[in-house]
Structure formats: C-alpha cells, structure tokens
C-alpha cells in the first residue's frame, strides 16, 4: 500500500494566489528542484523510501497550484477547503502518473487532472433535487461544524452539539442533514462510463487492493456490473465501509474527504445499486 501523502493544513488562503510559474515563490530554484524530484521518482522503485519522499515533496511543492485552481470554483456553494482537498487528490494522481518522457511541463500535465477532480466533486454532490440555497448553506455550516467538533472531541458530534455550536435549533440541524442527503435517486447514468476510464491507473486503484469479496453474495451476477459502473472511489468507500467495517470518519481520513462527503457518497452508491437491482428483477 502506498503511503498517503500528508497534506498540511491549508490555513487561510490569501486573496490572490497567482499562477505559480509567474511568482517569485516559484522561481528557478523550484523548477530545478521539481526536475530533480521527478527524475528521482523515475529512477527509484515505488517502494523505496526515497521515492516516497520525492513524491511527498513534489506534491507539497505544487499545493499553490491546487489552491489557485480550486479558487476558480469558489462561490459555487462548496467550501474552498473541500475544493482544495479534492484538488489535492487530483494533484497526487498527476504526480503518480506523470511521464517525464512526454516532454510536457508537470504543471501543464497536472492542471486538467486537478480541475477534473474538482469538477467531479461538484458532480458527486448530485444536487439533482433542487435544494434551496438556504439549505445548501446550512449543509456547508454543518459540514464545517462536524469537522471542527470531531477534531476537538475525537468523536462525531450529536445533533444537540451541532445546534448549540451553530446557534440554531435542533430541528434546523435535522432539516439540514436531510438536505445534505438530497442525492439523486436516478443518477444511474451519471456515472456510467465516467472519467475513470482514461484515468488509469488511478490512485484509489493503487491504494485499493481490496475488492468487494462477493463470493458469498447471492446477487453477485447482477451486482457485479452495477459495482463496476460505480466510480472507483465510490466502490472503494463501499468496500471499506461494508467489508472492512471501517467507520465513516475512518474512511474520511483514509480517502481524504469529509465524513459528510463519505456519508453522501455511500447513500448515493447504495441508491444506485438498489435501483439497478430493481431494474434487473
């Protein structure tokens, strides 16, 4: 299993993060370092600690690019931190797949992968049912508060704690949690032949290794193609939750997204599978 890259706390993102290549922060020294790291990665075995260190440093070096790209998608109802987080996953994928032989700059290569990951995040949210803006905002506050309170106490907060923290009623929290799950129940098409096709081999696949062991499952013939049609990340989350017994928070930490996001993806995947099974019979 590849070591997860530790992404440092992004802190507050400054108002204007210029394109890395044109900043003083990204000068010749950085470019030289970048080349050295890429060469080092190409020359070493993925299991080699040197390889892993080079990979980590390469990712860290390009975090400003992720911030820059993520900021293009702010004001669309998703917290910037979440966008930076998913964009970083794109960056890691790009680092793992970059082929220096192709003769393109790494940032040129990484940009579409990062943007793709951010766009996929919006698609995953699947606001197929029109959710009022107030509820979307409430959901965002809930997501933030959940993360904050979880970090403080080491466990997921209760509805009462969320209400007290946000200064709203418990009813509103319940309403917000429902809004958070306004996933589409007819999203079967949305993911068939999604981006995953050309993204081989994706980071999640490489991290994966675990496959749903369905030997004992009766519906396996009809379930198999449905599972295969899910994006690899969703498949992995399902496997971690239901076959490895990990909690949503543990999965969130492992996959690098928020617990609420995990819960949303689980609900959506299960709905997709359910619907597929119903069509089958």
């Amino acid at each position, binding site marked *: 299993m590849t070591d997860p890259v530790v992404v440092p706390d992004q802190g507050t993102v400054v108002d204007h993060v210029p394109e890395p290549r044109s900043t003083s922060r990204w000068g010749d020294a950085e470019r030289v370092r970048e080349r050295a790291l890429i060469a080092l990665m190409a020359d070493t075995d993925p299991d080699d600690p040197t390889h892993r260190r080079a990979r980590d440093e390469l990712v860290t070096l390009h975090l400003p690019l992720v911030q820059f790209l993520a900021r293009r998608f702010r004001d669309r109802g998703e917290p910037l931190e979440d966008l930076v987080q998913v964009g970083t996953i794109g960056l890691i994928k790009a680092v793992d797949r970059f082929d220096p032989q192709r003769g393109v700059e790494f940032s040129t290569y990484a940009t579409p992968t990062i943007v793709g990951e951010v766009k996929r995040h919006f698609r995953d949210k699947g606001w197929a049912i029109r959710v009022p803006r107030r509820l979307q905002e409430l959901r965002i506050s809930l997501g933030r508060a*959940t993360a904050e309170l979880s970090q403080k106490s080491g*466990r*997921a*907060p*209760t*509805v*009462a704690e*969320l209400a007290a923290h946000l200064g709203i009623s*418990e009813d509103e*929290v*319940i309403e917000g*949690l*429902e809004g958070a*799950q306004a996933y589409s*129940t007819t999203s079967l098409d949305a993911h068939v032949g999604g981006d995953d096709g050309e993204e081989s081999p994706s980071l999640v696949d490489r991290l994966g290794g675990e496959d749903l062991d*369905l030997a*004992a*499952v*009766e*519906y396996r013939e009809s*379930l198999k193609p449905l599972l295969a049609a899910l994006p690899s990340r969703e498949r992995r989350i399902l496997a971690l*939750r*239901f*076959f490895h*017994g990990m*909690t*949503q*928070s543990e999965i969130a930490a492992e996959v690098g997204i928020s*617990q609420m996001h995990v*819960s949303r993806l*689980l*609900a959506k995947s*299960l*709905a997709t*599978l*359910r619907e597929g*099974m*119903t069509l089958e*019979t």
Partner: protein
Amino acid sequence: MSTSIRLRIPASSEWVVLARTTATACCARLDFDVERLEDVRLAVDEVAGLLIAQAVPGSEISCVFTPYDDGRLDIALSAATDTGVLPQTDTFAWAVLTALVDDVRATVDAAELTVVLRTSRDATTAVDA
C-alpha cells in the same frame, strides 16, 4: 418506559424521506452522534427499498420507531406482501444492513413482511438472543 412513534407511508420511494427524517429525529432525541445517525438513515433507506420491492402495489409501509431511555432505538418497518418470503440474508443489501446497525431481524407471515432494526447510542451493544 418507552413511547412509540407510528407512521404509515405509501410503499413508494418518494415517501421514504419521511421515514428517514423521523428516524433522524429519534436519533437526535437519543443523542446519537451524527455518524451513527447517518448509518441509521442509510439502513432505513435500505430496508424501505427492500420492502417496496416486495410490497403489494398500492399498499403502505408501516413504520414504528421506539426510542428507549437507555439510548436504544428499534425501528420496525412492515409491508403487506403476498409472497410470504423472508429476505435472503446472503445478499449485498443484508450485508449492508448488518454493518449499519447492531441487529437486523426479519419476520414474515402470510400477509406481512417486517424488518426490525435495532441500534443504540453507544458502541455496538450485545444483541440479546
């Protein structure tokens, strides 16, 4: 002492939201953390899907939520069925259910299929036989 909340919804996926929201409110009342709460919601979705598939067309799903003072919550969902068949326990759906709650039981008679979910505020409680 415990009280039960009863709800009847048409056996159709568009009304499952009401069962889910009622479950959420019960969990909130029992002070479940949101992670457990989300698990319960997923489980209600799953059972409802299972029952809707077997329910007599045009019938209703009856939902009984029973929160206990010790933090336990039982949710019984039943549908009118004419097949009289218990759900298979070697299916993916069943594997999902058992992972989401402490205990799942299904009973069936000639007219009705019932699935009872038991969960609890605190970490998995031993299931009484």
